[in-house]
């Protein structure tokens, strides 16, 4: 009797692990398929580009003023803290280095990814889950339209472009604010600033930042969509799809950030 219970427990655990692995496998499979579709020019017609534009509009453009403001405030606070702390330890020379590394390389991309994940990622998750549960995607397929191409890939590409764009804008803003906080409005610090930026952004670091932004953007759409598509087609599973998608997304963002840090500093 206990052996059977143990067997059952073991089987349940194995099933859970298998389901977990299968879930991640579906993530990578869907991600790869979406990338292949996104990279084929034939995928873009007027309808898909319009949907993509809408996705970019809702994800990035709509929030751009508020995002810029929050980003500027956050940057300014962090920069002031770092400059004051570094100055009080006699390390003012390193303040700019620390600011750029902390803000531009780590905080801003992570901030953008979390912002977009909580806002648009959750929306995409719910929307695709409802479409999946209602059978909209199958209806599309029956009508001869590829749901991947017409509904899902535009969202993935739109999210990725939005995250990338927001990261670029936020990082540029942070660099400008860092300069202003360090040197004020005088152009006298340009040489020092250029020197510090040149010292930090080696090829590996720049490529790493670019890759991180791209992966963050892809994760923000791919993980919620995959989680939405794998739930049973019943309305009560919609919250579970959103929950799964958000948890996985958070995990994935943490993993990408951790991998980026490990790649850079270990």
């Amino acid at each position: 009797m206990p052996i059977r219970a143990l067997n059952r427990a073991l089987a349940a655990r194995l099933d859970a692990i298998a389901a977990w692995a299968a879930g991640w496998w579906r993530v990578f499979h869907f991600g790869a398929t979406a990338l292949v579709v996104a990279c084929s020019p034939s995928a873009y017609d007027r309808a898909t580009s319009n949907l993509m534009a809408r996705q970019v509009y809702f994800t990035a453009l709509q929030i751009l003023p508020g995002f810029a403001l929050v980003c500027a405030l956050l940057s300014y606070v962090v920069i002031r803290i770092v400059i004051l702390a570094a100055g009080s330890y006699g390390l003012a020379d390193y303040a700019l280095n620390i600011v750029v590394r902390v803000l531009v390389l780590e905080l801003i991309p992570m901030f953008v990814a979390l912002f977009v994940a909580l806002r648009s990622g959750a929306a995409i998750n719910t929307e695709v889950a409802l479409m999946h549960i209602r059978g909209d995607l199958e209806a599309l397929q029956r009508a001869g339209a590829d749901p991947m191409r017409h509904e899902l890939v535009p969202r993935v590409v739109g999210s990725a472009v939005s995250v990338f764009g927001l990261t670029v804008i936020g990082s540029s803003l942070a660099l400008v604010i860092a300069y202003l906080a360090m040197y004020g409005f005088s152009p006298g610090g340009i040489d020092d600033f250029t020197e510090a930026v040149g010292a930090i952004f080696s090829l590996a670091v720049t490529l790493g930042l670019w890759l991180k932004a791209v992966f963050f953007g892809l994760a923000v759409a791919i993980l919620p969509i995959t989680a939405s598509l794998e739930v049973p087609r019943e309305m009560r599973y919609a919250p579970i799809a959103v929950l799964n998608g958000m948890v996985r997304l958070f995990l994935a963002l943490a993993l990408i950030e951790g991998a980026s840090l490990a790649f850079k500093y270990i």
Partner: protein
Amino acid sequence: MEELPKSAQIPPEAIQAETTTSAPIPYLQFKVALLLALTLVLSVAFVGYVLYARGVFETTQSVVLVSDDSEGISVGMPVTFAGFAIGRVQRIELGDDAKVRIRVTVSQRDAHWLRVSSVFTIEKALVGGTRIRAFTGVLSDPPLPDGAVRPVLRGDATDELPKLVSTMKALLENLQSMTSADSNLQASLGHVNTVTGRMAGRSGVLGAVLGGDENARKVFGALDRANKLLDSLGGVSARLDQTLAKTDERVFGKDGVMDETQQSIRQLNAVLGDVRESLKKADAVLADAQKIGANARAATDDLATLRAEVEASLRKVSALIAEINRKWPFARDTELKLP
């Protein structure tokens, strides 16, 4: 949020028309294109700026710095001149001679700060990273050629630290043993204290030097006695003066020794005259004796008498001379010339 009703409510067959026509967003494509353009421009500008900052667009020349140790040196770290970054470490390699070769690229714009007499140092501070610095004393020297190999001096604060700490420790130990209660210094200071205490006492410095009032009193007594002795010596010398005066008077004064001596000499002269007379007589007698010749026997008796007289005279003379000599040790005219 806004997207939710859009896809959820549309009939599947109208999906394409839906996405294109139901958009209530004015200038959607234009706005999105604007965002994409902004992103693209910022990205390109950033990449361009980073490339510029890393000196990709400048012509550079290289300097090879040779060091014993590459600790703290990393690729990309700046080389500063007067606090300004003029170059960057491009690569670090270990040469065949076990020396570290640090290849530094210096932008052509800043290369004129480096001259053949420039000195390069690697400084490792206690806080903060290692710095490579260049110093140029004579800016009129010829410029450093491209690819020049220069030794680099290491100034490492942390290297010196253990030595400094051990020296400080020894110093502090010495200081401690010097200032401890049973140290020589303390004992010396105690002695100084005792001595100055004695100096302040009744006998003053003398008491301090001699080690006590008792000894000082003895010295005072000795001084007193010496004073008395000097007084009596003064008396003695006065008496001595008197004695000398008297002696002078006795010797050189009237009726003194000298006068008597002169009288004695005069007497001596007279005696010598007598002696000469006697000898003349003797001479005459001898001549008579020769003349007599044959009557020798009788004459011989006279001769013996005469001879005894002469001898007596001579003895008197000699006694007189001895007396003179005894009376005064002047040797003047003491020689007697016998004929």
